[in-house]
């Protein structure tokens, strides 16, 4: 079963995304509420995929992606964020995310994105 790390400061997103993933046969191996914790948990769990928010305290998602990718270039990361303007999308893709998704999400959006990546 593919293992997924969720990095987002919203408890609601953790709750809804976990339900979506588990309903579709994925395992949520860990939850982080900021980018720094996300990097630490990535190193600990080495998930198959990461869902990463952008706006978070301590360390934002773009910085977290860059940090993870610098050490683990094979890491697969989907950015899931409320902000979807051209500038931020470019920053995210340049940092190395595989797919950029704008909230809100539904099962179809999440599963389609995962299928493109793993």
């Amino acid at each position, binding site marked *: 079963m593919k293992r997924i790390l969720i990095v987002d400061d919203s*408890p609601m997103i953790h709750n809804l995304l976990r339900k979506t993933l588990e309903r579709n046969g994925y395992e949520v191996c860990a939850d982080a509420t900021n980018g720094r914790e996300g990097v630490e948990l990535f190193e600990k769990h080495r998930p198959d995929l990461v869902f990463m928010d952008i706006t978070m305290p301590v360390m934002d998602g773009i910085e977290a992606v860059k940090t993870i990718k610098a050490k683990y270039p094979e890491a697969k990361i989907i950015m899931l964020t409320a902000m979807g303007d051209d500038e931020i999308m470019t920053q995210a893709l340049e940092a190395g995310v595989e797919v950029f998704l704008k909230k*809100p999400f539904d099962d179809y959006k999440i599963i389609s994105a995962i299928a493109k990546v793993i």
Partner: protein
Amino acid sequence: MDSRLVTPYIESTVQIIRQMTGIEVTEISEPMPGSGEISAYGVTSVIAFAGTIKGRLLIDFQPELAVHIIKNLMREENPVLRDRLMLGCIAEMNNIIAGDANTLLNNEYGLGLRLAPPMVVTGKNMMLASSKVDSVTVLGRTDYGDFKLNIAFQGGLPS
């Protein structure tokens, strides 16, 4: 206030509430000039954002509407409004609405607006006072209760 700054937040609110909860906004008022004081319905979320201009979006729900929103979002039968997760839903919804509107404004006008973390307060008949910034209030109605938006900006778009 420039309607180009206001309309995206109204449209995003209607669309995101519908998309995330299935609740339709049945009436929406014209924007009215803000007075600097807002009498809260009961469940109020505020999010600030900044770029080349600064602004904030306040969304205030009647408690019965907030309960329905959370029920539909989380599939919770009897959400408790003082529960942190439940209030977090209201904050996240504001985050998504503001993010959606800001995305449009950023792509259209290059404002570079970035969101700060949202805050939620609960309490009926609270009076929320803000500093003297240009703001408008919009009243909305659904079958489950009413809400109001207060959109404020410091600075404007080029004419």
